[in-house]
């Protein structure tokens, strides 16, 4: 704990990165299935669009976790600023990333959008379920590093 006002930190474990990598680890095996569904529904363009959306969602989660981990080591004030500022910056980056490819021939907006929403919610639901189980039954909690 620092004694300088506004720079207090906690000795909390850096859980964000573990959670984000856990979600990515769970998302990667499912990714081919999602891309296949995109291909079945919208052809090659659908497959490319879903793959692009997966990269955006997983990259966004990792970027968020990396930013929080860095900010958490600095101070609680920096953590608050990073959470709010990071949100604005990441949304802008995601918007630009979609805007940049929007007019391209291989982009199908519907599978792209559906994949972004469903993947984000699906991974979070999965992680929340796992964390809830860990809190309810601590004996089942995976070892550190594989939360």
């Amino acid at each position: 704990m620092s004694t300088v006002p506004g720079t207090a930190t906690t000795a909390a474990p850096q859980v964000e990165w573990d959670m984000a990598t856990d979600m990515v680890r769970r998302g990667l095996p499912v990714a081919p299935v999602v891309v296949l569904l995109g291909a079945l529904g919208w052809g090659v363009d659908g497959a490319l669009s879903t793959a692009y959306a997966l990269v955006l969602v997983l990259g966004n989660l990792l970027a968020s976790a990396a930013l929080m981990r860095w900010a958490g080591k600095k101070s609680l004030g920096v953590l608050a600023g990073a959470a709010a500022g990071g949100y604005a910056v990441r949304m802008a980056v995601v918007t630009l990333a979609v805007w940049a490819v929007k007019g391209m021939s291989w982009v199908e907006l519907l599978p792209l959008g559906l994949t972004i929403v469903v993947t984000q919610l699906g991974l979070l639901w999965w992680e929340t379920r796992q964390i809830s189980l860990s809190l309810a039954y601590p004996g089942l909690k995976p070892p550190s590093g594989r939360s």
Partner: protein
Amino acid sequence: MGMAMMLAEQDPGELVAGLTAVGRGIVYGGAAIGPGIGIGIVVGNAITAMARQPESAGMVRTTMFLGIAFTEALALFGFVLAFIISG
């Protein structure tokens, strides 16, 4: 009155395109403001909790990160909807 006459003189296609752009802006803007406020509330309360009970900071940070990500999903809903509206 003048505004109504000006709109009546517009090409219908241009009017639709303009209104679509306005609608897109409202959808995305609204969808970004709400989660922004939500994330502020989540993080503010999490920091208060960590300051009051540093021993539970690990659990607070876990739920804070999940709360942020879930709130952010709302912004993604609006973002996706705005792009789908534009076609």
